[in-house]
């Protein structure tokens, strides 16, 4: 990033930065610019996703969703934000004033700091830390601190239950999350997010998911435990609205409340970006080597597009899971973690090690096996599409007889 700062300085003021006396001020300013850009992205992503999620959820439940504010309701999230900002910032009478006030900042900064190490494209990352993945795990744990603080200080039993559940959940799921990334780290030999992506390729069979059956298992485990870390359904126990009103944020209102859902939706990006960068090849563009990629600005933008598309697909799947699955019970949640995810992960790590020894990455056999794995994955997707078709046609005739019109109304046709 320092080079980029230097480049921008030269571009703007036509003098090398070393000669001018402003280098320190420029670097500080640059840091703020980057932070502002990330914040802008996170906030807008959270808002727009909240709108899109509601629309998708509505279609899954054969509703329409918010469509009144702006064309097709696209400004609904702005309206929601303004509404929440205008609300009274209420602090319960017996609450711990100080902790209650600071808790949202912990949640927010914990999440926002994760964006620092997340790449967006070739060379586009706020800080290419050499401990990137480790850093993201560590810093997102700060969110739990915020949640526990909020739940404890609210002096409400719902909030306290939510906080306790959150604590139990994070303690359990930190382990499979970290374990399931060990194969990736072994294959890459680095913790840096950029290096992990560079170790993969643009074509699907060069991704880590299809490296071996073991990495595929780890991918599934990582996806599940990332959902749990992000408090997404089916693991949204800390804020289970049917049991705990709204969980740890029950007592919050106004802007302080706004921070919680916003952080949650921003977290969606963090989850999806982590999944796509560790196992799905990140910003690698097919048929373009990293050397040619670094030379051209167009290709760099293409890499950003590839990354955003991959991440959006994962975000979509996470959203759809939310509207498909019911919530698990607390005991089921911990049981799933300790008796299924962790053992599977451990076996998969050992398996990957052996696989790496027998079939090193570059050999022909390894490529063939990766192609086979990809073939299985592709067949799986094909079967999935067949099942969707089956489900659609299963109800088609009944619908037509009942309503006298075709049920065909694809998602891109806006009601």
């Amino acid at each position, binding site marked *: 990033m320092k080079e980029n700062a230097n480049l921008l300085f030269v571009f703007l003021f036509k003098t090398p930065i070393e000669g001018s006396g402003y280098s320190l001020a420029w670097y500080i300013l640059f840091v703020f610019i980057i932070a502002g850009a990330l914040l802008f992205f996170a906030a807008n992503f959270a808002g727009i996703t909240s709108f899109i999620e509601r629309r*998708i959820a509505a279609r899954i439940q054969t509703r329409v969703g918010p469509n*009144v504010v702006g064309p097709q309701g696209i400004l609904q999230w702005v309206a929601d934000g303004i509404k929440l900002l205008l609300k009274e910032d209420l602090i319960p009478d017996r609450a711990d004033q100080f902790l209650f006030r600071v808790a949202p900042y912990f949640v927010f900064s914990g999440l926002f700091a994760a964006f620092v190490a997340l790449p967006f494209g070739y060379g586009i990352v706020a800080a290419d830390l050499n401990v990137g993945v480790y850093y993201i795990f560590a810093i997102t744990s700060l969110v739990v601190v915020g949640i526990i603080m909020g739940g404890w200080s609210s002096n409400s039993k719902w909030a306290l239950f939510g906080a306790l559940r959150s604590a139990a959940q994070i303690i359990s799921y930190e382990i499979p999350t970290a374990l399931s990334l060990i194969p990736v780290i072994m294959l890459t030999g680095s913790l840096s997010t950029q290096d992990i992506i560079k170790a993969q390729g643009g074509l699907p069979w060069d991704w880590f998911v299809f490296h071996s059956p073991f990495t595929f298992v780890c991918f599934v485990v990582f996806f599940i435990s990332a959902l749990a870390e992000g408090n997404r359904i089916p693991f949204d126990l800390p804020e289970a609205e049917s049991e705990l009103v709204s969980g740890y944020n029950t007592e919050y209102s106004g802007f302080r409340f706004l921070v919680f859902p916003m952080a949650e939706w921003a977290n969606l990006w963090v989850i999806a970006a982590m999944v796509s960068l560790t196992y799905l090849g990140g910003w690698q563009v097919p048929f373009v080597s990293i050397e040619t990629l670094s030379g051209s600005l167009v290709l760099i933008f293409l890499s950003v597009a590839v990354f955003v598309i991959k991440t959006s697909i994962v975000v979509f799947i996470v959203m*759809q899971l939310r509207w498909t699955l019911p919530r698990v019970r607390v005991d089921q949640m911990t049981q799933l973690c300790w008796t299924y995810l962790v053992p599977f992960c451990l076996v998969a790590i050992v398996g990957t090690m052996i696989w790496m020894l027998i079939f090193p990455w570059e050999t022909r056999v390894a490529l063939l096996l990766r192609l086979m794995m990809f073939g299985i994955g592709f067949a799986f997707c094909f079967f999935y599409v067949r099942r969707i078709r089956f489900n*659609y046609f299963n109800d088609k005739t009944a619908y037509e007889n009942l309503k006298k019109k075709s049920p065909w*109304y694809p998602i891109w046709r806006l009601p």
Partner: protein
Amino acid sequence: MTPYFNAVATTLYSIFEGMAVTTSYLFRRPSTIQYPNKLEKPLEEQLSDRYRGILQVDTSVCIGCRICEKTCPIDCIAINLEKNKETKERFLTRFDIDISKCMFCGLCSENCSTCAIYHTKFFNGATQNVDELVVRFVDSPIVLYKHRKDSDPKTREKDLSGVIVKQKMVKQRMKKQKTAKQEMPVNKISKHKIKEEIL
């Protein structure tokens, strides 16, 4: 060991199937009727003919039997009848329905022997003032209908869109607005008093 792996397999497969079902819904027509903005055809056409909307009285076929008034469980209907002593003619001088009280049970219209009182498909009669919802169907005395052998009023074409009741409600609102200016101060005082009483 087998139940353990079976559990994994069933879980993954059922999630897979569930996802396939929800995805298929993304390609189906939403069942929402987007009232009032985006309707394929007016909602009153989409409602069935037996929809129980706001009541309407066709005073030209009312025989003044007062059955509707008596059957109404919550006394929404008020009917006054008068008789001309010399000609022995009977008149309908008042036929009011308090729609704000009505629960659309349909008992009145079911029992009317000429279908003079019936439900329309008109339903959106919201106003700012509850008094406006007392619809007065008689402006000047109307001679009562008498049964004839050759015609059955039950088979006549009914006005289901509720033209009469709509007109009456609009007229009453206009009248209210004219007199509202004089009533204003009185209203204010009474509201004030109510507030004080509550406090």
